[in-house]
C-alpha cells in the first residue's frame, strides 16, 4: 500500500495506456466531469433533480476505476462544484440558499469520495492480484526451468523470458566477463546481439564489487542515465563469488515495487543455480578429459616399455653381434639375417611413432579429414603399393563396379586400408588369401578386408580397437602390437563420419568393415568429359 501512494508504480493501467499516457489523469478527470455536465445539460436530464447526482457518481466511479483514487477525489470536488454551479438554484452561482440543499450537496460530495475510493481500492487490489499471479507463474516456470533445462544457454534465456513477462521489466540480459576482462552478453531477452543499452562500467562495478546498481544508487546519477529509463545491474552470486551480472531495463516511467524486487532476487538466484551448474558440468568434463588423458599416458608408458624396448633391444643385440664379428666369425647368412632383423625392427619403431602421433592428434580432436572425391582405384593402388611382391600375391582385390569414387581424405584412408591389410596378412597363414573388397550400398560405401586367419578373440571383438590392446594369446608374443594400428584406423574412419567394425567370419577368419557415409548429393561424381 505504501508504494501505491509513494510513487507512480500504483498508477492504474489506463494511465499507462499509450493513447492517453501523455495526459495527466487529473486533467482527464476534470474533463470527464465537464463532459458529464454538458451531457446532462444537453439531454435535459436535469428535468428530474434525482438524476444529476446519480450521473455524477457514475462518472466519479468510472474515473476511480480507470484513473485511480486521487483523480477520483479531484473528480468528486469538481462534480460537487459543477453540480452547485449549474444545477443548484441560484444557477450559475456557488451560492446555496436552501440549507437542505447544502446538506444534500455535502452528502453527495462525501458519497462521491467514498464510492471513488472504494472503486479505486477494488481496482488496485484486482491489479495487485493480477500482478501477483503473473509473478507467481513466472517464478514457478523459472523454477521448473532450473530443474529441467539441461542446456545452459536455453535455461538462461528462458528465465530471462519469464522475467520480462513481468510488467515492470522491459529487457533483461546476463552479462559475463570473458578471459580478456571485458564484459559481453551471454544471453538476453528479447534476444539481441549488440548491447548498446548496457553500460559496461556499471556492469563492471556490479561484478567486481558484488553490489547492485539499482534505482537508488548514486551510480544512476553518476552515469547520467536518462531520467525516464532506469537500468539495474544485479550481481549473480554463488556463495562467495560473483558469477555474472543480471542487467534489467525497466519499463518506462516505472519504479520497482516490493514485489518486483522479490521476484527479481528470486530470478537472480535461479540464474545463479543455472550458471553454477554449468560450471560444475564443465569442470566435470574437464576432469574426465584429464582422467582419460592420464589413462592414455599410463597405457602409453606401458607400451613404450614393451613395444619400444623389444625392437630396440633386438637392434642393440644384433648390432653387438655384428661388432664382434671378427672374434666369432659369423657366416654370411647369419649376418644377413641379423641385418634384416635390424631393418624390420627400425621400420616397426617408425610405424609405432607414426601411430602414436596420429592417435594423439585424433584424441585431441584437432585433426579434420581433408575430403576429396577420390577414385577407388587410386585408393586401392596406393594401398597395395606399400606391400612387397610376395605380400601382393596374397592380396585379392574385388571391386564393386558400382563404386567408382569415395569421398575421403585419401592419405588417411590409404593408411586405414594399409593397417587393415597389414593386420590381416600378419594374423593369417602365409598360404592364405587376404581379400580387399568394395561394396556400394544406397546408405553407405563399404570397404572390407577379409582374412582366413584365426579370427578375432572371442568376446573381445570390440576390445581390439582399444589403444594398446593385445589379444591375450599375443600379449607376450614376438608379434608386434596391433592395438595402435586398429585404434588409429577406427579414429580416422570415425573422423570421416563412418564406422569401422570387426566380425568373425562363419568358417574362419575375420572381416574388418569400413562403412563410409555416402558423399553429399551435390558433390560432382560424374566421369569427366
Amino acid at each position, binding site marked *: 500500500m505504501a508504494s501505491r501512494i509513494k510513487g507512480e508504480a500504483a498508477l492504474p493501467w489506463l494511465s499507462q495506456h499509450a493513447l492517453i499516457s501523455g495526459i495527466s489523469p487529473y486533467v482527464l478527470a476534470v474533463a470527464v466531469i465537464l463532459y458529464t455536465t454538458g451531457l446532462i445539460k444537453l439531454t435535459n436530464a436535469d428535468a428530474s433533480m434525482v438524476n444529476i447526482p446519480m450521473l455524477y457518481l457514475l462518472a466519479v466511479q468510472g474515473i476511480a476505476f480507470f484513473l485511480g483514487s486521487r483523480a477520483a477525489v479531484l473528480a468528486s470536488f469538481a462534480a460537487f462544484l459543477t453540480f452547485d454551479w449549474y444545477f443548484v438554484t441560484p444557477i450559475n452561482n456557488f451560492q446555496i440558499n436552501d440549507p437542505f440543499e447544502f446538506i444534500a450537496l455535502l452528502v453527495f460530495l462525501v458519497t462521491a469520495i467514498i464510492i471513488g475510493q472504494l472503486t479505486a481500492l477494488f481496482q488496485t487490489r484486482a491489479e495487485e492480484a493480477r500482478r501477483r499471479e503473473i509473478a507467481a507463474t513466472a517464478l514457478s516456470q523459472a523454477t521448473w526451468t532450473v530443474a529441467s533445462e539441461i542446456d545452459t544457454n536455453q535455461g538462461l534465456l528462458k528465465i530471462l523470458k519469464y522475467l520480462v513477462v513481468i510488467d515492470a521489466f522491459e529487457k533483461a540480459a546476463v552479462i559475463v566477463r570473458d578471459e580478456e576482462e571485458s564484459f559481453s552478453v551471454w544471453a538476453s531477452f528479447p534476444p539481441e546481439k549488440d548491447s548498446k543499452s548496457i553500460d559496461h562500467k556499471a556492469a563492471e562495478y556490479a561484478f567486481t564489487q558484488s553490489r547492485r546498481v539499482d534505482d537508488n544508487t548514486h551510480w544512476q546519477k553518476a552515469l547520467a542515465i536518462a531520467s525516464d529509463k532506469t537500468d539495474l545491474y544485479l550481481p549473480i552470486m554463488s556463495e562467495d563469488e560473483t558469477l555474472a551480472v543480471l542487467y534489467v531495463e525497466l519499463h518506462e516511467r516505472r519504479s520497482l515495487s516490493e514485489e518486483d524486487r522479490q521476484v527479481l532476487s528470486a530470478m537472480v538466484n535461479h540464474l545463479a543455480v543455472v550458471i553454477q551448474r554449468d560450471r560444475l558440468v564443465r569442470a566435470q568434463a574437464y576432469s574426465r578429459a584429464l582422467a582419460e588423458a592420464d589413462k592414455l599416458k599410463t597405457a602409453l608408458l606401458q607400451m613404450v616399455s614393451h613395444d619400444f624396448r623389444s625392437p630396440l633391444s633386438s637392434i642393440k643385440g644384433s648390432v653387438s653381434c655384428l661388432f664382434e664379428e671378427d672374434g666369432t666369425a659369423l657366416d654370411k647368412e647369419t649376418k644377413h639375417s641379423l641385418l634384416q632383423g635390424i*631393418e624390420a625392427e*627400425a*621400420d616397426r619403431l*617408425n*610405424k609405432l611413432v*607414426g601411430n602414436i*602421433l596420429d592417435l594423439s592428434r585424433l584424441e585431441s580432436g584437432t585433426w579434420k579429414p*581433408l575430403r*576429396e*572425391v*577420390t*577414385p577407388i*582405384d*587410386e585408393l*586401392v*593402388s*596406393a594401398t*597395395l*603399393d*606399400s*606391400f*612387397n611382391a610376395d605380400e*601382393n600375391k596374397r592380396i585379392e*582385390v574385388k*571391386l564393386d563396379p558400382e563404386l*567408382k569414387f569415395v569421398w575421403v581424405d*585419401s*592419405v588417411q584412408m*590409404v*593408411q586405414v586400408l*594399409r593397417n587393415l591389410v597389414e593386420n590381416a596378412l600378419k594374423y593369417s597363414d602365409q598360404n592364405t588369401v587376404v581379400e580387399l573388397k568394395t561394396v556400394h550400398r544406397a546408405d553407405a560405401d563399404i570397404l572390407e578386408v577379409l582374412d582366413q586367419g584365426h579370427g578375432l578373440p572371442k568376446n573381445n571383438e570390440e576390445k581390439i580397437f582399444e589403444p594398446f590392446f593385445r589379444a591375450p594369446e599375443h600379449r607376450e608374443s614376438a608379434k608386434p602390437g596391433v592395438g595402435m594400428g586398429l585404434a588409429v584406423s577406427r579414429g580416422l574412419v570415425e573422423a570421416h563420419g563412418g564406422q569401422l567394425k570387426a566380425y568373425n567370419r562363419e568358417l574362419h577368419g575375420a572381416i574388418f568393415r569400413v562403412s563410409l557415409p555416402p558423399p553429399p548429393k551435390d558433390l*560432382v561424381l*560424374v*566421369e*569427366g568429359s
Partner: protein
Amino acid sequence: MKSGTKILVIDDEPQIRRAIRVGLEKFDYKVLLATTGEEGLDLAALESPDVVILDLAMPGIDGFEVCRQLREWSQVPIIVLSVRDSEESKVRALEMGADDYVIKPFGMRELEARIKAVTRRTRGEQAPEQSNFSCEGLVIDYVKRMVSIDGKEVHLTPKEYDLLKYMATHADRVLTHGQLLTKVWGPEFVQDHHTLRVHVANLRNKVEKQPERPRFIHTETRVGYRLRTSEAVPSPS
C-alpha cells in the same frame, strides 16, 4: 656408367650424412657432403654434382630455399628428404623444382632406386627429341599420336593422350596435381583436381591391365602421379 656419378648430400644431421655416404659409396657413387644450405649451394656451384640429395628441415637456409636458388642456374636432379605426413611440403618442394622425394626414415635401396631413376630421366632429356616412348608393352608414338599396349592400339581422348604424353616425357618423376593441370589443361585449371583424377582413372582403365595394381601410372597420395618405367620399390608407410 654409374661409377663416377657425383652426388651432393645436403643435410645438417651427421648420422644421416654418414649413413648416406657409406651406403652410396658401396654403389660406387662419389659422395660430397654439406652440412648447411649455404655450403651445399657453394659445393653445387664448385663441383657440379649429378644429383643433389637435400634435407628440407635445416637451420639457416632451408631446403625449399636451396631448391629455389639451385634452380635459378642449374637443372641438376634434386631428391628431397622429407618426413612423413607433410604432403604440403612435398608438393611445395616439387613445385620449386625438386624431382623426387624420399620419406625419412628411408632404406638405402630405395634411395638408390630413386637416384637411378632421376639420372636416367636426365639422360633421356639430354638426348635428342625422341619420336616414341616404349616400356614393357606400352608404346606411345608421338608422331602419329598413337598409343598401344602389347601391339594393340588403345583409343584415348585428346586430353588423355596429352596427359599420358606429358607423364611419359617426364617419366619416373613425381608430377604434382598442379603441374599436370597447368601443363595439360592450362594454368586456369590448376585447382581442378577432380578433373585430373577422373582422367587418370579413365586412362588407367585403358592402359593398365589391372587398374587397381597399376604398372605404369602410380599415385603419390595427395601429391600427384608418377609414370614408372621400372618396378617400384615399396616404401615403408
